[in-house]
């Protein structure tokens, strides 16, 4: 038996070598790590803004503002027990849109301002409006 194994030794060695090289090569692909750069401030802004837009939107119509909801109680109610500081203004594009609606809640120091393109339901259909929102980053 030892004679047979000895005669095959070079083949075994080549076999082991090839497999080892192959294994090392393949392992490089299995050990891939991806690096992601996530700006948490953007995520925070997105969550807060979308929550406010949903809060002030018509039922099941995200982005279509319900002007009747523009009051402190509704806005406060949407954020529950979370400490908040908001200043929200709805500016309609139409010149006949009247005075912009405005709500202010909580501590309004050091506010961060963002804007969103929203819609307002009128007799002439869905008209554009701008939701200007300022929120207190430190309290949310």
């Amino acid at each position, binding site marked *: *038996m030892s004679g*047979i*194994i000895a005669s*095959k030794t070079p083949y*075994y060695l080549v*076999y*082991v070598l090839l*497999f*080892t090289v192959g*294994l*090392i090569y393949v*392992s*490089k*692909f299995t*050990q*891939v*790590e*991806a*690096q*992601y*750069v*996530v*700006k948490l401030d*953007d*995520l925070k*802004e*997105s969550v807060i*803004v*979308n929550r406010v*837009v949903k809060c002030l939107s018509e039922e099941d119509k995200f*982005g279509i503002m319900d002007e009747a909801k523009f009051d402190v109680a509704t806005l406060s109610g949407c954020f529950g027990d979370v400490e908040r500081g908001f200043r929200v203004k709805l500016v309609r*594009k139409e010149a006949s849109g009247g005075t912009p609606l405005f709500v202010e809640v909580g501590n309004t120091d050091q506010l961060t301002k*963002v*804007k*969103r*393109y*929203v*819609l307002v339901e009128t007799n*002439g*259909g*869905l*008209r*554009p409006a*701008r939701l200007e929102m300022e929120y207190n980053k430190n309290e949310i």
Partner: protein
Amino acid sequence: MRFEDWEDLIVGFILLVILIVVGNVLDYGDPALYTTGEINLKDEAGLLLLNYVKSETDSGKMANRIILNEEGDHTTRIPLQKSSKELLGFMELREKNFILKAKYPNGRLEPIAGSGLYKLPIEREVSLTLAQVEYDNKRTEMVLKLGDGEKIKLPSLNRGLIIVEFKLEDE
């Protein structure tokens, strides 16, 4: 089983042990590392595009006006570009670069509005083509091809879908 088969089995088993040992002991060095860059979590453009196409003006809903502009006739294109510029101007995106464009099923791409880096020569009476306007490479690419902006599909009056794209970048 024959004697040679037992031999091969034993040798095979030994090789397997060697492979496992090599696999566990050998240091492969650092794994390959891929950086995907920044993940954009800003969703302002999505809501803006959605509400833009749903917006109604005195000349009708923006989505309908984009659909009616399929042939690129100046009687539909110029008012569409003007209204869009006005609507997006109202959103006060001045400090940002944006480009709004529509690609029709016939392959024609219509730049509708743009600002900053992607500002359009809106006064032009003809549709832009690569031959007509020599922008720098990035600008040309952004204005005349669909990119990685937010997209919405609208049904075409002919067959197929119109892809409306809105790309928003901080300056």
